[in-house]
């Protein structure tokens, strides 16, 4: 293969452990009750448009965008709004959510809920963006940034590249991989729709080299497509990070504190491309997604298509049941995912995986003194000095931490993964980011 493209600074290669690779996507049956949080996107939470006791159909709008950076929420099931209450979500906090009792599965009129493949799209850019906005689509890699906002190129900026993120660099996760294998043609159409929306004529699908079957399939599917190329990438975490992927594919660096559009790039996840396909060609809002349910103690690691709002417990049961020696449940991948307090939190738009860790793997190793080995600096994909930033945050010198670039941290966790002294570097970096954020807001207010 020779030299494969990748990003330059830092990076690590943790054991991949893709236990559910190659497992066909199974549809999980609709549960008896779903919990649909109002804030499923980065930005402002959505505002409810239905009330307690209302009957809703599958795909019906139940909450609308609560600001510019916000998104619509649709009912993933048909039934009755049982309650609107604060419910615990993946963050561990209780936040406003709809609790819907399921009755049958009656879809809204106008939604094409079949597998029929639609190839041609004649809509204009504006029409596409409107459809994407209505469908409540957010970035499905986990960041949950509202997709329609990303598609609206700000004045004075020019999009040149659409980059489709099929990297899936998190260990264990296989949802995007399997989606590419099973829904390749749809993802290609989704890519073409996104290109049209952005008015770009170049798209690159970036896939890491540990998925040769997906690379081959996507290459075959795009062979006839003008402007779409598949770019195999060297396996390196965190290549799925937006800035790292742009660097790997185009060799452009998004300036510190700026958005990808600054260098003419827009990145969308393959899952998002598929959701866009469904929204635009079939009027189907974002009410279900593919979730990898995995873990070394799990009987049957799986890729499941589930309705938003389904309790995590149902997914774990489908994958063989909750193993006795589970020590940690992670929503997302092991590097950037969040530890869940219970199995009773719902799947949301950004849930890419559920990982069960055994008791022995669930605990942090004992922290030792920093031996100044500088490995954290060597692996930092943003070129920061995590040992220094963590020390500054630890002593409360947030001004200095800001000067050392703490806000550039993408929280990939490479530093903490690598640290031989097992120092919880990212904990302190997060603290620093938080406090510096407060400082910055106070400054702009004045």
């Amino acid at each position, binding site marked *: 293969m020779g030299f494969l493209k990748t990003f330059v600074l830092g990076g690590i290669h943790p054991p991949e452990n893709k236990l559910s690779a190659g497992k066909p996507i199974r549809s999980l049956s609709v549960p008896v009750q779903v919990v649909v949080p109002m804030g499923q996107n980065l930005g402002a939470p959505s505002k409810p448009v239905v009330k307690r006791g209302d009957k809703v159909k599958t795909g019906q709008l139940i909450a609308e965008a609560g600001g510019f950076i916000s998104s619509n929420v649709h009912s993933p099931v048909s039934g009755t709004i049982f309650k609107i209450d604060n419910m615990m979500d993946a963050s561990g906090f209780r936040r406003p959510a709809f609790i819907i009792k399921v009755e049958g599965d009656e879809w809204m009129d106008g939604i094409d809920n079949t597998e029929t493949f639609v190839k041609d799209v004649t809509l204009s850019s504006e029409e596409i963006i409107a459809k994407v906005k209505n469908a409540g689509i957010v970035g499905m890699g986990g960041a949950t940034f509202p997709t329609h906002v990303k598609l609206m190129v700000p004045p004075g900026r020019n999009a040149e590249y659409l980059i489709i993120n099929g990297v899936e660099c998190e260990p264990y996760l296989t949802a995007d991989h399997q989606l590419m294998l099973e829904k390749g043609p749809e993802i290609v159409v989704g890519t073409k729709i996104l290109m049209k929306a952005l008015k770009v004529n170049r798209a690159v699908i970036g896939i890491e080299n540990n998925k040769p079957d997906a690379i081959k399939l996507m290459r075959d599917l795009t062979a006839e497509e003008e402007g779409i190329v598949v770019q195999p990438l060297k396996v390196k975490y965190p290549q799925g990070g937006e800035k790292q992927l742009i660097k790997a594919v185009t060799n452009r660096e998004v300036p510190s504190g700026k958005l990808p559009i600054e260098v003419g790039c827009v990145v969308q996840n393959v899952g998002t491309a598929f959701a866009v396909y469904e929204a635009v060609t079939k009027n189907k809002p974002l009410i279900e997604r593919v979730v990898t349910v995995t873990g070394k103690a799990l009987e049957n690691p799986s890729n499941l298509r589930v309705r938003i709002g389904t309790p995590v417990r149902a997914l774990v049961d489908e994958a063989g049941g909750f193993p006795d020696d589970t020590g940690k449940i992670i929503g997302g991948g092991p590097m950037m995912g969040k530890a*869940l307090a219970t199995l009773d939190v719902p799947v949301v738009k950004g849930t890419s995986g559920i990982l069960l860790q055994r008791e022995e793997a669930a605990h942090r190793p004992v922290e030792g003194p920093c031996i100044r080995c500088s490995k954290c600096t060597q692996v930092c994909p943003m070129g920061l000095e995590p040992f220094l930033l963590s020390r500054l945050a630890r002593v409360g010198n947030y001004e200095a931490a800001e000067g050392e670039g703490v806000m550039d941290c993408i929280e990939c966790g490479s530093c903490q993964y690598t640290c031989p002294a097992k120092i*919880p570097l990212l904990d302190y970096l997060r603290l620093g980011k938080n406090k510096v954020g407060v400082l910055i807001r106070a400054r702009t207010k004045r």
Partner: protein
Amino acid sequence: MLTISGSPHLHGDNSTKKIMYGVVTAMLPAMVVAIWYFGLGALEIIVLSVGFSLFFEWLIQKYLIKGPLTITDGSAMVTGILLAFNVPSNLPWWMIIIGALVAIGIGKMSFGGLGKNIFNPALVSRVFLLVSFPVAMTSWPKPSPITKTLVDTITGPTPLGFVKEGLGAGKTLAELSQHLPGYGQQLMGQMGGSLGEVSALALIIGGIYMLWKKIITWEIPVSVLVTVFVFSGILWQIDPLHYTNPVFNLLTGGIMLGAIFMATDMVTSPMTRGGQLLFGFGIGLITMLIRVWGAYPEGVSFAILLMNSVVPLINKGFKPKRFGTVKMAA
């Protein structure tokens, strides 16, 4: 019970212990050579140095710092071996015990223990011993394979000391070089010197092992050695009768031990690659200045300690290249 903690939820299998015992492993070839050429005296020094380094760290940690047990992390063992490597094999037993106390007590624990010290502990102790016991620290047993003599009693100078003294007495290099060991002997370590520094080959093997295991990076050893080679090469080109050739400068004295094992000490070396290159350059330069114009025939220890003291400054000046800070060409 479920555990809740922040990401990442994976941890690499590298650890401080692995690094330290990796360094110990890398020092094994040099240890074997030391015992081969210097006999049981070398073994005795190594055992005493390691044993008492561990003992003093345990003692200080338990009764002065009152912290948890730290001697199992391997760092005291590394310091102990490095200290032994830096002294002659016939050093009186009580001096090496004092050396261990200085290395661990003053060099390391007085700063707060592992990771906090500014200077390489083994070198602090070596220099302490050198100025306190100059005679004992500069009487070098003549090496002979262990199969011939178990404990050496005949002493002689190191090649560097021999050359410096000879040149000082007005002899020419041509006369002196007849009495020097050949390159082969220098490479294998059959010459006078501190017990761990003599065999360039054994040290290089250890260095390659550490590079392979990613314990060290190439920047420091290479920049030290290149600086010494170039500096001595220039002088040698100017006046080959008065200055020793660059290969001789690399193979004799403590430069290999210093470049590969002492200067690369993570705690006391710079954090970024650029800083490490400057650090290595400084060590090479100061070493050569002392060797050529200083009072001592050898200057690696002083060079490393001097450069250790400016590491915080180097760290301030050499930052890693930040992502997204370079202006894009439009």
